[in-house]
């Protein structure tokens, strides 16, 4: 399966994504520079983490106007699979490809550590290799991961089952202590209504090899490959 990893000025997880997809999972990968408009025939676009455009104005606010994002918007509208990780998630929110917005972490600190997450749905291209309710370990590394949405939008997101991952404790329970950044409803990852665009704050690419302390992130990339094989 051919993946495209986008690079903005300030992206810093792009090579981690390339490494996991190419070296760990043996997939085809091309990088897509923010000034380009061609998606080079990729089947899945990955917006990696980092600090695109220095996080100026708001996280993701400037990146959304880059030439490549116009092509990605059209690609997503046509049903193309897009995944945004951390800053990539923030860019998808700013671009309006996902509902809601990110605010500063409730504790006002940049948080960089492993968290536990509960898999809320498995019948999606992003999660088909997980078990329903599975508790997984992935690292987070962000300052603006406090997810918010307007009440009406939040209601719709819940009703349509757009939440794919929630921050939880080791037993899969949602508690105040297990929510690292104050996200509404402990939301860590969501999809759009069509189910082809996903954003998540934790980093699956940093948890795809045993040496990194968790291989749970690999299941997410394997889900994409699985979904593509049966498409």
């Amino acid at each position, binding site marked *: 399966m051919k993946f495209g990893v986008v690079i903005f000025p300030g992206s810093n997880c792009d090579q981690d994504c390339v490494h996991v997809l190419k070296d760990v999972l043996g997939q085809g990968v091309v990088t897509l520079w923010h000034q380009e408009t061609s998606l080079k025939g990729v089947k899945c676009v990955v917006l990696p983490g980092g600090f695109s455009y220095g996080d100026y104005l708001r996280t993701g606010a400037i990146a959304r106007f880059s030439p490549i994002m116009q092509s990605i918007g059209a690609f997503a509208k046509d049903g193309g699979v897009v995944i945004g990780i951390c800053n990539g998630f923030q860019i998808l929110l700013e671009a309006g490809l996902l509902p809601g917005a990110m605010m500063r972490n409730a504790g006002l600190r940049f948080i960089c550590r492993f968290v536990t997450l509960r898999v809320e749905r498995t019948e999606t291209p992003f999660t088909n290799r997980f078990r329903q309710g599975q508790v997984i370990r992935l690292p987070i590394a962000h300052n603006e991961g406090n997810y*918010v949405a*307007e009440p009406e939008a939040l209601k719709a997101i819940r009703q349509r089952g757009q939440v794919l991952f929630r921050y939880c404790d080791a037993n899969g329970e949602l508690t105040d202590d297990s929510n690292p950044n104050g996200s509404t409803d402990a939301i860590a990852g969501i999809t759009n209504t069509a189910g082809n665009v996903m954003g998540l704050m934790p980093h699956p690419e940093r948890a795809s090899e045993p040496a990194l302390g968790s291989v749970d992130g690999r299941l997410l990339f394997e889900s994409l490959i699985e979904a593509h094989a049966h498409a």
Partner: protein
Amino acid sequence: MKATVAVTLKPGLLDVQGKATQQALESLGFKGIKQVRVGKLIEIELNHATVAATKRDLERMCQKLLANPVVETYRIALAR
């Protein structure tokens, strides 16, 4: 023409920066603070022909980029 655009979080949203700043002010001994909200100030110089055109463009700038309508509000002030 010079414009200043003030962007702040919507009234209903918990402003964690504002809250922390308020607590810091109180710990310095300042009393009677009801609320602190932290936002950002953007200064823009324009050379549009008319005030109406300036206002129209500033409004569009706010809606398209300067503020995120999901969580923020904005105020535009014009000075010659």
